[in-house]
């Protein structure tokens, strides 16, 4: 049993290292293993089958997990919040005039040819 657990830990370690190589940390963006549940992937038969093979077929593993990895990563609460914060910071530091109807009207330049009625 102990040996089995150690084996699982080893597999987990290999997988964690692999996905962090695919999506590494960069500035405020976390590495993959910080936001996704590794167990979710290890439960998938095909993934565990590839991980058990030696040497590791990294091309096959990448192909097998890439869509799910992106999906889990970019729908994780932490990543969404980080990206939202970036957007909100930008918005609050930008000059946006169109939130005001009067200023918005001034932005529109209508020429006579646009009269389609």
């Amino acid at each position: 049993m102990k040996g089995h657990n150690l084996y699982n830990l080893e597999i987990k370690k290999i997988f964690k290292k692999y996905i962090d190589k695919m999506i590494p940390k960069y500035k405020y963006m976390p590495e993959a293993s910080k936001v996704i549940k590794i167990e979710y992937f290890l439960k998938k038969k095909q993934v565990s089958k590839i991980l058990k093979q030696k040497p590791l077929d990294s091309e096959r593993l990448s192909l097998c997990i890439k869509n799910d990895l992106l999906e889990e990563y970019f729908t994780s609460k932490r990543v969404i919040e980080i990206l939202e914060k970036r957007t909100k910071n930008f918005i609050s530091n930008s000059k946006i005039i169109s939130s005001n109807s009067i200023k918005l009207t001034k932005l529109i330049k209508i020429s006579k040819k646009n009269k389609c009625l």
Partner: protein
Amino acid sequence: MKTKEKEVDIIIIGAGASGAAAAWNLSKTNYKIVCLEQGPLVNKNNYCSFQYKWEKLKKNKFNINPNIRKLKQDYPIDDKNSPISIANFNAVGGSTILYSGHFPRFHVSDFKTKTLDDVGKDWPITYSDLEKYYDLNDKMMGVAGLTGDPVYPKILNLKQPVPLGYAGEKIAKGFNKLGWHWWPSYSAVTKKINGKYQKMSVDKNYWPKAIKNGVNLKTNCKVKKIVSKASGQVSGVIYLDSKNKEKFLGAKLVILACSGIGTPRLLLNSANDYYPKGLANSSGLVGKNLMLHPLGYVEGIFKNFLASNYGPEGCCLASHEFYETKKLNEFKRGYTIHVLRGTGPLETAMNSLKLKRLKFGKSFHKDFLKIYGCTIPLAIICEDLPEKTNFIELDNSKKDSGGIPGVKINYSLNKNTKKMLAHGIEKGKKIMKTIGAHSILSFAPVRHTGWHTMGTACMGVSAKDSVVNSFGQTHDIKNLVVVDSSIFTTSGGVNPMSTIQALSLKITDDIKSSPNRFFL
């Protein structure tokens, strides 16, 4: 064995945009009304727009494609013979649960394309006939926008427009530079007190009011057939309840509100000895003249972050510069240039990976952040002309969970549309270049965009070349009425929701004011 239920005055089939408007408008009378909806009432808290996993939900149970979603209430749609696949949602609220809430009206010219441009057909009604219903519907749906748009008669009482955002202002200045028309989007998007925007769907406004007024909304009930026991009249419907038990519900009047696909499907599936080609099909036009608004896509990528992903999805601004027929063009009628918001992070990453703009490894985030929020996408929404060669038919080889046949789509783009799409793509690229995009992507037609299903039970004056008259009443059957987008004579070049609901309100007002015209 069928259970026979107590007869009602009116049955409405479908609780989407048109069914909801019809139910509410008729609920202010003494009629006993039942609405049968094949889908459930979705808990508002489960809407994908309220959750940070919204992009994941959009790929699964809130997928726009019923063939991927495959929920109990969905019916199979074979779209192999079409470059555009059908998008819909079956539930109380229908497609308004998933739509972007874009709410432009048809132009005055859209109702008379034959007279003006010698293409399509003239509607038997005009913009003026619908105007007060457009206004009423805008009020009910909480439509935001800006008064003064030169392409429309004056539209009043709009709510505060949804801000363009930084990216919207950038492209608006580009339109100004080119001297092209643009206007802030008309959107059923309302600002909430906490500052967040909420998209309006009919389960939140029309339905609670209709139910309060006494309309009996039955969910998870699939209508199998409309029953006609004598020529010129229908007597009710056979439906499967939530436990798949077959029932007969009698009614004095049956109103179809099942979309441009669901309505012809039901009419064709209701064929009987009196109507062997399907109900209301003496013209042979039920299911024909399918129009889908073929869509072109242009995306510009910019060096700096524009926060283009910020704001309600799908609603920024629109240009009608190329909407009307122009002498120099090689095509008739025209299109809307619809400026969208940037895609969400998951869609951005998935598409970028596919296009090899992004790869896993060291530079993953650096490359991702150069794209996410740095793109401005726009859609070219083309007017589709009615053609008998574009049609839907029953597909007996694929049935839904109740054993009712699915639908097969037969659709191709005509020469006019192809030229229009090419023109739109060229103009889309021009605007992107004008505002400094360093990279531009474009393609057409976009496959997964068949939201706007129109024309398959078209409105007209004569029983020979149309299915319903100007009252939405079928030419063949007095007490059978259609209020959804299948009755569109032509498609216009804008999102049809506003016109669908205005038509439904007008037709139900006609029923209220002249009941003898409709009831036996």
